[in-house]
C-alpha cells in the first residue's frame, strides 16, 4: 500500500467556500447569487453568499422548529453549551485572527476583539441560569393566591448584526438571544462576514442544536423588509439602523407587533442582562391557596 503523502509547504492552499448556516446545515444560498469580498489591495478574499428572502424564510422555519427544544432545555444545560462555544472558539484563535486581518484588522485590534469575544461568551454562559432569578418576582397579591412572574423566551428572533465588527458584533446579535431560550436568525456584517461563518462552524461543533442559531450573509437593505415583516418572527434586533430605515422597521414590525430593539455599536461590548431581557416576555401565573381557617379562599 502506498504511503500517505502530506502536501508540501509550497503546495497550493485549499480555500474555504463560505456558506450559510441554516438548521444545522451549511447550504449555499438557494438563489445561487454571491458578492465578492475584497481586501484593501483589491484581492479576492472570498465569494460570499448573497442570501435571498427564501433563504430567510427557510431559516425562520428552522428556527421555529428548534425553538421549543432549545427553550425547554434546562438553564444549566444552555449555560454549558454556551460555555462550550467559548471552549471551541478558544482553540481556533489563529483562524479568527487571520480572518480579521485578511479584512484589514491590525494585529492588536484582531487580538483584542478575539479576547473580548471569548470573555463575552463566558459572561453570558453564566447568565443562562441566573437572569431568571434576578428578574422574577413572587407578587404579594391581596387575595388568597400564589402569584409569580418569570421571564420566558419571546420565541424566534431576527437580528441584523453590526457592520462594524467581524466577530464580537455577530456574538452580540445571537448570544443574549439564545441565552434566554430564543432561537435566532442573524444577518452577518455585510463587509466583514467571514468570521460569522467560521463562527457557525464553531457553533456546529459545540452541542448547539441545529436551527438554534442560523446565519445568513448578504445585503441588509435587500433583506430588511423580510426580517421585519415576517409573521412568524417574534423579535427583531438591529445595530446602527439608518434613521430612514427605522421608520420602515417600525411600520413593518407592526404587522404582527414584533418587538424591536435598536442598538448602537460600541467599542466595548454591552455585558448586561438587559440584552437578554430585551428578548423576554414576562409571564404571570396565579393559583389559589387553600386556607381553611382564613377568609377569602377562592377558586
Amino acid at each position, binding site marked *: 500500500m502506498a504511503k500517505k503523502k502530506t502536501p508540501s509547504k509550497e503546495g497550493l492552499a485549499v480555500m474555504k467556500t463560505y456558506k450559510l448556516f441554516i438548521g444545522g446545515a451549511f447550504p449555499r444560498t438557494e438563489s445561487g447569487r454571491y458578492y465578492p469580498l475584497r481586501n484593501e489591495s483589491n484581492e479576492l478574499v472570498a465569494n460570499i453568499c448573497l442570501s435571498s428572502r427564501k433563504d430567510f424564510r427557510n431559516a425562520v422555519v428552522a428556527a421555529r422548529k428548534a425553538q421549543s427544544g432549545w427553550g425547554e432545555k434546562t438553564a444549566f444545560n444552555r449555560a454549558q453549551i454556551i460555555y462550550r462555544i467559548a471552549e471551541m472558539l478558544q482553540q481556533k484563535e489563529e483562524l479568527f485572527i487571520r480572518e480579521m486581518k485578511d479584512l484589514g484588522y491590525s494585529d492588536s485590534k484582531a487580538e483584542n476583539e478575539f479576547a473580548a469575544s471569548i470573555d463575552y461568551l463566558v459572561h453570558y454562559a453564566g447568565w443562562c441560569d441566573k437572569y431568571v432569578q434576578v428578574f422574577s418576582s413572587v407578587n404579594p397579591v391581596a387575595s388568597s393566591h400564589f402569584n409569580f412572574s418569570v421571564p420566558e423566551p419571546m420565541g424566534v428572533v431576527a437580528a441584523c448584526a453590526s457592520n462594524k465588527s467581524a466577530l464580537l458584533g455577530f456574538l452580540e446579535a445571537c448570544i443574549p438571544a439564545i441565552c434566554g431560550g430564543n432561537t435566532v436568525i442573524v444577518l452577518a456584517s455585510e463587509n466583514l462576514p467571514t468570521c460569522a461563518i467560521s463562527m457557525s462552524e464553531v457553533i456546529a461543533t459545540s452541542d448547539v442544536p441545529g436551527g438554534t442559531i442560523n446565519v445568513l450573509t448578504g445585503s441588509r437593505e435587500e433583506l430588511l423588509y423580510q426580517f421585519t415583516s415576517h409573521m412568524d418572527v417574534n423579535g427583531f434586533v438591529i445595530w446602527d439602523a439608518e434613521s430612514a430605515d427605522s421608520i420602515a422597521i417600525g411600520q413593518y414590525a407592526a404587522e404582527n407587533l414584533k418587538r424591536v430593539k435598536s442598538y448602537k455599536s460600541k467599542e466595548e461590548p454591552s455585558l448586561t442582562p438587559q*440584552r437578554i431581557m430585551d428578548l423576554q416576555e414576562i409571564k404571570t401565573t*396565579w393559583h389559589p391557596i387553600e386556607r381553611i381557617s382564613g377568609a377569602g379562599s377562592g377558586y
Partner: protein
Amino acid sequence: MAKTTKENKWELSPAPESTGHISIKKRYDLFIDGKFVAPSTKKYFDSINPATEEDLTQIALAGEKDVDKAVKAARKAYDTVWSKTSTAERGKYIYRIARLIQERAREFAVIESLDGGKPIRESRDVDIPLAAAHFFYHAGWADKLDYAFPNSDPKSIGVVGQIIPWNFPLLMAAWKIAPALACGNTVVLKPAETTSLTALKLAELIQDAGLPNGVVNIITGAGETGQALVGHSDIDKIAFTGSTEVGKMIRRSLAGTSTRLTLELGGKAANIVFEDAAIDQAVEGIVNGIYFNQGHVCCAGSRLFVEESVADEVVRKLKHRMDHLIVGDPLDKNTDVGAINSKGQLQTIENYLKAGQKDGFEMYQSKVAVPKKGYWCKPTLFTDVSQSSIISKEEIFGPVLAMQTFRTIDEVIDKANNTPYGLSAGVWTDKGSKIFNLTTRLKAGVVWANTFNKFDPSSPFGGYKESGFGREGGIHGLSAYLKLQD
C-alpha cells in the same frame, strides 16, 4: 319581598343601589393644568346610560388645540414642578389620591355602573377597590425605584400620553396614572368616549388632593382626540389599552420616532378544563371567565376547551348555571350581567352571533328575560365550534363563549396557542405537575390555574404576540414608565 314563580322557584326581589348620594353635573369640561376649561371646539357630546338609553351628561370634545394645551401643561408641570418634587413627596400625593378614592368609593361605583352598564357588584367589589389599590401600591414605589432596578439608574421619561378603553374606565385610568406618577412623569389621559365620567370625577378628586397643576390632565373625546395625542410631537411616551387594530395603527404612526410605546391589546383566551378538575369550581371559573363584565374584558376566557370525557357534564352544569345568571339593572345588587356598553358594541356582538349560527354551530342562550330598553345580550354558549371559525378566532368582547373539546394535552396546547393573541389563559386540573406543564407552555402573559380573571396591582398584566407589549402592575410594570440604563 321575595316571590315564588310558577315552578315554585324562589326569585330575588330587586335590591337597587341608591343614586341619591351622587352628583353628576349637566356638562363636563376638559381638565387641563389643574382647571376645568371649555373645549376649543365648543362641542360637547352626550354620555348615556346604556341600561336605560337616557342621557347622563354632556362631555367636552377635545380638539387638536386642546390636546396641545394639555401637553404643554404637562410639559410645564414636568419641567418646573414634578421632576423637582422629591420622590417621597411624590409618593405622598399618590397616597392621598388612593385614600380619597376609598372615601368616595361608593359614589364612584354607582357612577361607573350608571355610565358603563356594569353590575354594581362588580364596580363596587372589583373596579373601584382595585383602582384605589393601584394608587396605594404605586405610591410606595415612588421613593424605592432604585431597589426595583439595581445598577440601572432609573429615571423618569417625561410627558406621557395615555389612552384607555371603556370596559374598566376608572380602573384603567388608575392602571395608567398611578405608575406614571410614581415614576416621576406627568400625564395627559384620554378616557373612552362612552365612559368619561369617572375619569372626570377623578379629575375633581385630583384637584382635591392638591396635586400640582398640570401633573395630570384629562381630555375627553373619541378616536380623533386620541390620534391628536399620539401625533403630538412633545409626547415622550404613549401607553394605549384598546383594540389590536388601533394598537397597530399607533405602532405604525410612531415608527421611527423616539416616542416610547406600550400596548395592552385584545385577546382570545383559552380556558382549559381537564377531566380531573373540580368540575363545579371549573364551571364557576368558566362563568366568571366569560360573563364577568358582560365579556367586555380583553383577557376574557372566550375559548373554552373541555376534555372530551367530561364535556357532557360541563355543558350541562354550565347551561344550568347560565340560566341562573341575573341579567338586568346594573344598579341592582343581585345582577350578575349588566348592560352592553353601547349600541355599537351590541351590534358587533350580534353580528358575531349571526356568524356563529351561519357557520352551523349550536347556540345556547340563557333562559332569562332582559329589559326592553337599553342594550342587552344574554349569556351565550356555542358548542362544538371549529378552530378556524370566526367566533373562535376573533375577539368578540361580549358574553359569548366558543367551546371545543380535546383528547390530549399536546392537542389542547397546540389549539390554545394557535392564535395571534397571547394575553391570558386558564387551566383547570387537580394535578400540580399538569398545571405547570400547561402554564409553562401556554403562550400568554397571564395564566390563571384553577382560577380566572383575578387582578392585583402587584401582579404584572400584559400580553405576548399581538396582545401587545409591556406590562402593567408589579415591579415589571414600572419599567414601562422609566428610562433604564443599558
